[in-house]
């Protein structure tokens, strides 16, 4: 278990290193966008490399769509620059940039057939009718809709429409593909399937892709790198593994996956006192001793153990259990000399059966040093 994790940690590093060599394809510098008084994007800096699949992830209103629209030239920023493929495109209108785009609504032309929708961008470019037809046929095959060529968008399912929009966007072979919440209008089953398909297509074409999403699962499964945004600023940029395992801020930790936050005090650079539970930890940043902190760990990282069998082991009582399909989420009450607090823990069905766990039972749980994150405690009045 331990080995496996470290291995994937290493591959994650390798992957990003391989991607991030050389000159970035897209460079965003100091980009600010205001709507009246409201600052939608606050001096954003970001580099995206050729062939990368990048996800902008964040809650609604975080500025992720605004950033995408600035990159497309649809809503040009107030300040800052955007370089694409060595060219300064900061103030250019959309038609003078190089991108294909798929909107949440797909924006398929309702009165044109699927064939004509896909051919739309190929026309007026000096390409012959026959060449256009060949290209469209190829694209239709690529997205598996050859039989639907003569139908109208309204006659297709949502997933099919989505693929038409994708085919139309890549028809002109743009250097950059922008996807604005492309899957959010679909139901869960179709979404899972298309997720895989889009990723495959992107890999096949090697086109640099930016996708905006508020769905963390989508971002984790599809992206090479994730850009987590909140309140118009970038909270963290990293591989999905990085973002999940080493969230840079409590916001990222909370937004992606589930996280327990318990107030604590830092003893020294390797020990923290979590409301009376002493834990060994390995914080990335060195804070001053005695500082108030937030101790964070994921529910799945709590491991049931025998008393004092492992490091960071402490006693807890099961307050309640919620059945979530493949596992149970348990509320654990921890009572110490300083008071009591409750954390969540995920236990597999097998474990529950094997250990015969039940509500009211007292157990021992442990936390591996590497899974504990420590953040400075929020100041009074600051949002957690």
């Amino acid at each position, binding site marked *: 278990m331990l080995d496996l994790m470290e291995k994937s940690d290493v591959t994650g590093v390798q992957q990003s290193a391989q991607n991030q060599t050389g000159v970035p394809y897209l460079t965003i*510098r*100091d980009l*600010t966008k205001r709507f009246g008084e409201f600052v939608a994007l606050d*001096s954003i*800096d970001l580099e995206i490399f050729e062939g990368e699949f990048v996800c902008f992830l964040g809650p609604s209103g975080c500025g992720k769509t605004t950033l995408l629209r600035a990159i*497309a*030239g*649809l809503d*040009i*920023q*107030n*300040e*800052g620059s955007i370089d694409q493929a060595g060219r300064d495109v*900061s*103030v*250019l*209108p*959309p*038609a*003078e*940039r190089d*991108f*294909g*785009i798929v*909107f949440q*609504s797909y*924006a398929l*032309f*309702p*009165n*044109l057939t699927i064939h004509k929708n896909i051919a*739309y*961008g190929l*026309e*007026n*470019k000096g390409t012959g009718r026959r060449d256009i037809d060949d290209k469209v046929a190829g694209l239709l095959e690529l997205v598996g809709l050859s039989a639907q060529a003569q139908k*109208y*968008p*309204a*006659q297709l399912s949502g997933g099919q429409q989505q693929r038409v929009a994708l085919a*139309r*966007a890549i*028809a*002109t072979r*743009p250097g950059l593909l922008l996807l604005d919440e492309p899957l959010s209008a679909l139901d869960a089953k179709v979404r899972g399937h298309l997720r895989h398909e889009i990723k495959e297509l992107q890999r096949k074409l090697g086109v640099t892709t930016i996708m905006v999403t508020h769905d963390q699962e989508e971002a984790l499964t599809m992206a090479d790198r994730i850009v987590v945004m909140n309140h118009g600023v970038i909270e963290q940029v990293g591989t999905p593994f990085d973002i999940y395992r080493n969230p840079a801020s409590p916001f990222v930790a909370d937004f992606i996956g589930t996280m327990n936050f318990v107030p604590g005090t830092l003893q020294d650079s390797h020990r923290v006192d979590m409301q009376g539970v002493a834990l060994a930890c390995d914080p990335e940043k060195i804070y001053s001793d005695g500082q108030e902190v937030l101790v964070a760990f994921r529910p799945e990282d709590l491991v049931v153990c025998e008393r004092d069998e492992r490091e960071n082991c402490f006693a807890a009582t099961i307050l309640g259990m919620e059945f979530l399909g493949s596992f149970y989420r348990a509320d654990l009450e921890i009572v110490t000399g300083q008071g009591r607090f409750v954390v969540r823990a995920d236990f597999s069905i097998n474990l529950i059966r094997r250990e015969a766990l039940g509500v009211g039972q007292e157990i021992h749980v442990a936390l591996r040093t590497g899974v504990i994150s420590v953040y400075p405690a929020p100041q009074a009045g600051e949002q957690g």
Partner: protein
Amino acid sequence: MSELSLSGAPVKPLKPKVSRDDWAMRGFMVMIGLYLLVTLALPLYAMLSKSLENRDGDFVGLANYVEYFSTPALFNSIGNSITISLVTTLITVTLAFWFAYGLTRSCMPFKRTFRMLAMVPILVPSLLPGIGLIYMFGNQGYMKELLLGQSIYGPLGIVIAEVFFTFPHALLIIMTALSIADGRLYEAASALRASRSKVFRTVTLPGARYGLISAAFVVFTLVITDFGAPKVIGGQYNVLAVDIYKQVIGQQNFSMGAVVSVILLIPAIMAFAVDRRVQKKQVALLSARAVPYAPKRNRVLDVGMTLYCGAIILIILLILGTCQYAALVKFWPYNLELGLQHYNFDIVDGGGWEAYGNSIRMALWTAFVGTAVIFVGAYMVEKGRGFDEGRGLFQFFAMMPMAVPGMVLGLAYIFFFNNPDNPFNFLYGTMAILVICTITHFYTVAHLTAMTALKQMDKEFEAVSQSLKQPFYKTFFRVTVPVCSPAILEIAVYLFVNAMTTVSAVVFIYGTSTQLASVSVLNMDDAGDIAPAAAMGMMIFYTNAVARLVHLGASWLLEKRTQAWRVK
């Protein structure tokens, strides 16, 4: 974060580059905006300054206004106009509300027929109901006894004619308001065992209140600015719109005509401003996710509503039928033999059959040119990028015509275009100026129809098209126009019908070679040739009825051809 922001250099705000498409779209918008400036704002300004001049064109300040308010024969019209408008508003809105209630909340039969026939008054000039009333209740009217000695010439006649004329306008608005009712509210009310009258007071009326207010303002504005009905049947009862006509055509007192126009503008603009605010609230009401209300059978209500709506339709048809009958009768009321001699328009004053031909030409030009101009203008203002101040100004210009009464617009045209120093003077007396005036006069409603249709289109079509490096006009012709074709047809037929029936604006600016059918109804009636006036009025009605039928057929064909992609 970055070194750049730390350097402390002041950051220059970026200036987006304006693409060739942007320039082109703004160019079109500015052109149409200038069109509105020249055909609306400048003439109104000319009129305003004329009201401050004497007959010789010297500036006299407010002297004309002082004269106006010291002449009871003139300022009494203000009270008259307001009285007539208020009374008509009350009657029309009440009648139209119950008619709309029958159409939307009962299970009465013939709903479609009733609805269609209730729209008939829109197809005739407002002069026509007055003529019908003269034959019914005038000195030789066949139902004169019903009035018990009262005279139809005066406020009574005006109000009846105006109710006829404004009924469909009120009905359309109130019906829209009633048909967006939320069925769940009614289910909740009946689950709480509320009585029928309580449901009506607590659910139906509040739901329709914006519609009722809006309808009231529309009717009020229509009546206070209407010229046709009081002209024909008003007798000695003076109202503002007719005063303008009398001052200008009768006494050649243009300055006083301008003064009356300015006074008439005030209530019209006020009513318009209030209505716009109410309309916005109505839209907010619409956006709620509601379950449509489905009326249940109720014998008493259904029979009662059938009788009520039937009676109203009968009255509408009776007034119209009387006009047609009178137009065919040889010599009312002495020789009731039927014949077509009154259709020999060429032997009476008013322009004859040529005027009818002119009207059709004018209406067709208005429909074609007007639809193109208005739709293109709406597209540029709705789908253009940047240039927000320009777009806002354009939107303001496009809304203005609604607040300007036809008489005022027509008079303003005299002052502006008949000025020899005006470079557009060559237009005066031509067919072109009639078309221009009519397009401007009816601009707002057509513009709003176009905007509604455009707003319903995915706002990302243009963005997608730009990303595919296609010019805007390709999207416009290949996507926007086909998708909006029902609205475009609707605008065209609206302009056609109104161009056929309008009198108020064009009465001041037609020339000897550009007489119009609607104006000839007025002139024949003025000359005492009432039967030919009725005959011509009915010709306008039949022409508009055919136009509506053609529209219906075209819509049906369109729907059939496009149903493959319109399915939702």
